[in-house]
């Protein structure tokens, strides 16, 4: 296969851009979920926004961003509130409460989706689960030189623009409320005594997660959203103890996973003699898993090897003087 510059710019650049933005946005928020031990809330919300998306879509009959985003945000908040209600009112264990609420909401979404499909609409399970990264086209550029033309940039695909706006918004919110998010994540009781409502920031974070889910689901699908909410932040968490560093590392991981996974899926098969490209969103999730395993093994301080070496050093010390090279 020969890759022309025009193909690359029209097909691959927007997809990689969308992938990176989706990964970065989710990774940013994921840092706080992982610290709060609520990474499964991300999972729950990614499932639970489905009925909201479909309802927003069915009620307006179009794939316009605003109603879908509004529906998803609504559904995300409803899910977060319902989980809390089932947990408190019903005295159900948190894991089960999440499982009950998100599976019921997801089922509702699936049934609604069949209704949408019945009315001949291009919205189906595949799109929501796996995303349509390959379908994001940027028709304007024709070569490297055309990138200097501002009208080419104005023709950026809608998915990428949406993702960019949502990512920028999430980044702005995190930057603005960094101190509050940090303190409510590490010590909710202290936050409450200082007059910072831990509950408010819990629901605020859940709202941002719902927004990120819906912006990203169109490009990369809901399953990859879950992976990106959890994995980059986990990788970063194994590498550092400082939150600010952790956030930066997680964005770096997202940069490696998003475009990297895309390249592997789109071009990888040809390198080993295949004839068709593979699903990019799935490849990104797989790549993120591989990176996580590598990190678990070789992280400098919290990795398996480092810990084992440390343990061995402690074990050797009380024995006799080691001979030769110590």
């Amino acid at each position, binding site marked *: 296969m020969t890759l022309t510059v025009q193909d690359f710019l029209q097909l691959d650049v927007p997809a990689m851009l969308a992938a990176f933005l989706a990964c970065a946005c989710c990774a940013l928020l994921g840092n706080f979920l992982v610290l709060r*031990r*609520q*990474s*499964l809330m*991300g*999972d729950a919300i990614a499932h639970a926004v489905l009925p909201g998306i479909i309802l927003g879509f*069915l009620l307006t*009959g*179009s*794939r316009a961003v605003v109603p879908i985003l509004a529906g998803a945000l609504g559904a995300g908040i409803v899910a977060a509130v319902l989980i809390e209600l*089932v947990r408190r009112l*019903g005295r*159900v*264990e948190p*894991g*089960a409460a*999440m*499982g*009950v609420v998100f*599976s*019921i909401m*997801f*089922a*509702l979404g*699936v*049934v609604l989706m*069949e*209704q*949408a499909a*019945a*009315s*001949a*609409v291009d919205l189906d399970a595949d799109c929501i*689960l796996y995303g349509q990264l390959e379908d994001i086209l940027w028709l304007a550029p024709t070569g490297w030189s055309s990138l200097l033309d501002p009208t080419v940039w104005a023709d950026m695909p809608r998915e990428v623009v949406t993702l960019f706006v949502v990512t920028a918004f999430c980044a702005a919110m995190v930057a603005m409320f960094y101190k509050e998010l940090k303190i409510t994540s590490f010590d909710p009781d202290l936050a409450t005594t200082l007059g910072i409502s831990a509950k408010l920031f819990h629901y605020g974070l859940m709202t941002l997660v719902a927004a990120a889910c819906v912006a990203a689901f169109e490009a990369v699908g809901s*399953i990859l959203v*879950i*992976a990106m909410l*959890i*994995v980059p932040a*986990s990788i970063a*968490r*194994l590498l550092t103890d400082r939150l600010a560093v952790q956030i930066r590392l997680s964005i770096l991981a997202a940069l490696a996973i998003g475009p990297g996974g895309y390249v592997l*899926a789109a071009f990888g098969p040809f390198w080993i003699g295949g*004839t*068709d490209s*593979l*699903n990019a*969103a*799935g*490849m*990104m*999730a*797989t790549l993120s*898993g591989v990176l*996580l395993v590598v990190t*678990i093994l070789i*992280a400098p301080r*919290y*990795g*398996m090897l480092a810990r084992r070496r440390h343990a061995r050093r402690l074990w050797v010390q009380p024995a006799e003087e080691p001979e030769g090279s110590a």
Partner: protein
Amino acid sequence: MNTATSLATVSYDWPPLHEVLAVLTLNAGYNAASVVVGTMLLGIAAGMVGTFALLRKRALMSDALSHATLPGICMAFIVAAAIGTTGRSLPVLIAGAAVSGIVGVLFAQFIVANSRLRQDVAIGVVLSVFFGLGVVLLSYIQTMQTGSQGGLHHFILGQTAALKRSDALLMGGIALLALLATTALFKEFRLICFDEDFARVQDWPVSRIDLLMMTLVVVVTVVGLQAVGLLLIVAFVIIPPTAARFWTDRLGAMTLLAAAFGGLSGYLGSSASALFPDLPTGAVIVLVSGAIFVVSMFLAPGRGVVADVLRRVRMRTRMAQEHVLRSYFELFETGHYRDWRTSRVPREALLLYRDWHRRGLGLLLRLMALRGLLTLHGDEVALTDKGREEAFRITRTHRLWEQYLTTHADLAPAQVHGPAELVEHVLTPQMIADLEERLAVVGRRPRADAMPQSAHPLPDAGEGATP
């Protein structure tokens, strides 16, 4: 784009009643009947196994497990196609699903054991990464030249209508085995759910029993995949037992109820799927069990929300009522009111004696009048005989407890009123008799018909504050 996509334009052709009845009574042909029975058996098994998964707090681990089956299914399909057999054979796919599901669970345990990441992260990682890998393999299968992969799609959202008769029988058969195994191991499972340490001390093979339990979850999950779909099978495992938990505190009853709820969801869900072939079965099953869950959460008499609120309201009313009775008694005792002939006390005096909400007290007094504890005379109230008896009893209980606290718990008389306010409502006659015995030992046995002295000075009527 087609603009006529509002909800109103979407409608299903309802099947005629006799067809609905035929499906529900298993008379719509051998094939349909075996699918319905198979799904129902699966629901029963899932409910029973799920009860233990829930009690072991493994609800979301089963979710990771079910998502992790996808790459196994795809691998099994690819391998089967490569060696030339048809990839659509259910036993082969189920075997692949079981293997990768187990690998997924082991991987989650590996993450928790070997890094500082916690269980929630491990579950999320397994769920998304394995599913992602499965999606990659699916996209590879789609490009394979060997032909139909249409069946694999049903593993994600579930489609009982796509089940062949032999598949349904296989599913039902395995579910029946899982059900029998759970019944046989009931005692062991109960033991490790409630007191793992005790089981260990008693030399039970705890980790092996645990492994068996997890195996049963795996079995139910993978055989149910084609009917319910791997995204929603977790609901089949956790919703029925969570709903059953509202009705009872007994494990046996909970297991039976969970089995019944699961069976009902499977039965109704697969019937609906037979009648409306477009509806995804898994989603319908989950919505049926979701409805059961909502009803249980609110209406169950045991731990249901409505019963709970009612119980609380009733308790608070009774406490308030008893406080009125004691205030009344003490107003007479302190000598502020001596007219036992009419024995009337103005409402204002009660209001000043204790910190009531004016309108709340009004409602309360009317309720007590209805119950025959007192009579209302304009702005005055008078106790009936029954009310006096009650007032005597509750005041006496209050004072006995105060005395007990001063003699046995070494509390200063000024400190005993508060605790007695709370305890007076819940002391049973048996406990009161016991209290009297204990007071007798220190020479303070109260006479049955006499009121003990208050341990602390009572407030003057009119001053308002209670001590």
